[in-house]
């Protein structure tokens, strides 16, 4: 069971309180009608799925209920950092852009 630092609760909490919410920093375009089918596919389905640092969303659903972002190493499952929704993607060594 992971231990996850919630940036809103400012505390490490057990994974049971959280729900994983997929890849982070996928911006929902405002002009979706203008997207081609391929662009829409990329937005909806194509995922980086990196072996290494992943930027992902979590929701502290059974805690403060906030969505937030995390950088986690998918080889070790260790968190590099967590940060609030809306904050810019941190620059990390070894992480894919």
């Amino acid at each position: 069971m992971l231990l996850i630092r919630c940036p809103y609760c400012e505390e490490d909490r057990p994974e049971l309180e959280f729900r994983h919410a997929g890849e982070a920093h996928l911006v929902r375009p405002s002009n979706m009608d203008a997207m081609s089918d391929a662009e829409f596919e990329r937005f909806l389905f194509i995922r980086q799925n990196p072996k290494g640092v992943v930027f992902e969303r979590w929701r502290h659903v059974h805690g403060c209920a906030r969505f937030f972002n995390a950088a986690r190493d998918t080889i070790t499952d260790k968190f590099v950092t967590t940060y609030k929704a809306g904050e810019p993607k941190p620059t990390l060594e070894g992480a894919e852009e």
Partner: protein
Amino acid sequence: MSAPYRIAGKGRLTPARAVRFTFDGKHYAGLEGDTLASALLANGVHLVGRSFKYHRPRGFLSAGAEEPNALVGVHRDAARKTPNVRATVQELYDGLEAVSQNRWPSLALDVGAINDLASPLFSAGFYYKTFMWPKAAWKRFYEPNIRAAAGLGVAPDQADPDHYAARYAHCDVLIVGGGVAGLTAALAAAETGARIMLVDEQAEPAGALRYESGTRIDGQDGWDWAQAAVQTLRGMDNVHLLTRTTAFGYYTQNMVALSERVTEHLAEPQQDLPRERLWQVRAKRVILATGAIERHMVFANNDRPGIMLASAGRSYLNHHGVAVGRRVGIYTANDSAYHAAVDLKQAGVDVPAIVDLRDNPQGPGVDAARALGIPIHAGRAVVGVAGRQRVTAMNVQAKGGGAVNPIPVDALLTSAGWTPSVHLFSQSRGKVAYDDAGKRFLPGVGAQDCVSIGACNGTDDLDDLLSEAIKAGREAAKAAGIATGRAGPKLKATSSESWSGGMIGAGPGADADSKGKAFVDFQNDVTAKDIRQAVREGMQSIEHVKRFTTNGMATDQGKTSNLHGLAIAAEMLGKAVPAVGLTTFRAPYTPVTFGALANYSRGDQFDPTRRTAIHPWAEAKGAVFEDVGQWKRARYFPRAGEDMFAAVNRECRTVREAAGLFDASTLGKIEVVGPDAASFMELLYTNPWQKLEPGRCRYGIMLREDGFIYDDGVVGRLAPDRSHVTTTTGGAARVLNHMEDYLQTEFPHLKVYLTSVSEQWAVIAVQGPKSREIIAPLVEGIDLSDAAMPHMSVREGKICGVPTRLFRMSFTGERGFEVNVPADYGQAVWEALWAEAEKHGACAYGTEAMHVLRAEKGYIIVGQDTDGTATASDVGLDWAVGKKKADFVGKRGMARPDLVAAGRKQLVGLRSPDGKTVLEEGAHLVADPNQKVPMTMIGHVTSSYWSENCGHPIALAMVVDGHNRMGEKLFVPMPNGTIEVEVTGTVFFDETGERLHG
């Protein structure tokens, strides 16, 4: 009943405390503090089991958790039968009943032992090479016979009456292992005030001090020091000491799982005690002091009962006061076994010879043995033994060959050296490193906040070990954020024990050309020969060797066998041991009871049973309930003599003729509040919301971003900035999550908040022509007239004197209301409404009638008529999609090519021309009933009922291009004939909808 092998005055058990037990029906006596193993050995019993494949007779190898052989069944009563219990771990209690396993008809005379004679055929992996002809025989003959021969104990056949507990715990420092290293580290860490947990698998922590002799710590005998340390630790508020507890798994971010055996040692456990307790511990730092496990020597027939690990022989002698034989031989490749010889000799046991593979053994142990006059055969090997059900002699030969000299013995203690227990370290994803000199793997680069100390870290010298433990204890506390003020404890110790050295792999006489069975893995009957054969067949990876031979895959998980197997494979491959690699250490360290893993999660606690506020009334009325997710919902309310069909028909008829009351409390409800509430709803639902007047309701459809229907429900606008949203019962939690997701991450600029009020409101649907008459007498402050409160409107007021949100809406096609009241009032208001309802001949109806009534009107149920692949257009809900809206979730998704292509499945009605046949839900439709299988299916029935109100069956179906097939004949091929159906619209009753308003 005297125990012939118990030595008076030896050991730490109290002779006065006798305990009776049985093994295979025979009565024995032991002492309190015995394990089943020590008690049997005290009675001279060595033969206790049969091996997995060859059914060879087996005795005890060890005195601990690493035991591969001595597995027995322990029976408390008919329902409390536990298979595969290690006799070396099971503490004795009065009345304990143990039985041997994997033998028939008896342990001494096991027919399965024929496998041993035929063993040349049963080589490693033989089953992959045969049993293929004739093909049908695998299922009918070979496999059943293989299965019957395999397996060890017998699974219980009754539900387990015991209960299990669990606890989450947190600490600064978790110390695993209560030997000298663990205890010392605990003392050092504890005095800083840090929160300490110390766990040990024994009843009395001591580790190797349990069997060592002559070790003195702090001026005390080792065992006494350990018990004093335990007392000290028990007396400290910041220390939590758990005994009979195994740390079985090391998970990510320092979560360590423990299993505590609470009652397995008790004759009559107190009822409230759980049998076992699962601990899930999150530690800031972990100290692993898990010790080392002795390896056996690999030589021909090294599995005979009476052949044991040297440390086991010592443990039985020094702790339990039991001699494992009267004439005990020793075969070793290191120093530590000498101490066993010395202890035995001093206790009056004949030790005819120490056979040492080394040419020139030296050290205090060797000197002591020599001083006692024990013959030492250096540079020689035991190449075989005599005896079948018990060893009778060891055959000694010089390493280079030559004459074989049998030396009569009735027990033989062997030691090939010590394997550090790096299991947990490895589970923590730490990398182990090979110590070539010591022939062992040691903790290398760690991956988590943990440190290994003592024997599991390869620290053999006692003084070094003490300073390492003190340092680890203090540093762990410091790393956990605790100030470490004083200098820490100082301990002085003396010991002549030696743990280093030894050999891995096959010994002389078990080399590649030998014929005998030299066992590496006892339980799975894996010999040195098997491992060599695996390599010959191309198994180069140690994982392949393991899987091909099953070495290390038995219930002991290779604690004594893995390193030997690896060394033999490495030799065959001509590679260095670390180049071949180690198999992965997997949790659990020792097997963990399912009951402990499941702990509270059974019966009522398996999953919450959610009941509405009105549930007690329905229950009292004899309602039949169904599970809908976690909820119990009343399915129908049978009256005397009614079956489900009759009850549902009556309920359906009554609702349309008079009225019915329905408990709709399980629907999800979300209060959407804020100036941007309508803008938010615009984005989350397909419908337009901005123009919906306060006091009015609208049916809304929610899509996923991919354009498929996600949920639906009626939304009431209470005020410009406040809406009451309903969801499906199953959708309540995920819809709120979906809405929060968009609100927090995509539309955070919107000023709106969401609150779940699903359980704030009990909801009573009153549906039918008499609905208004039923509620009117109880409602205050709301004009119920059609003009003032038309279909699809909502009002706030009072009913029965309590606040209500009253919706005029319908899921039946009749005039209807949904009465929302604060949940604690739900039952009382229902009862008041029921009193009124009875006056009008109304009934209570359940989910089944609800389903029929809505199907008569063609209203869909999301999750039944839709299945996650349906669009709004597919189910005829185009009208609810605001096509002029700039954006809503799912708008782009539903425009994808396949979602707008021709030939999609669309919702239609079906009628059976015979007016009688109710189709089966899930039945599939074809256009041509005469085609061959596989048929081309063009749709399936999603809902199907007998409609009492229509007087004929009705069905809804998803059919390819269904909207263009009105009036077409289709076919439902069933196992006993094909049913013809006609495609119709989806509304079967009151097509004009006048009853809604009338």
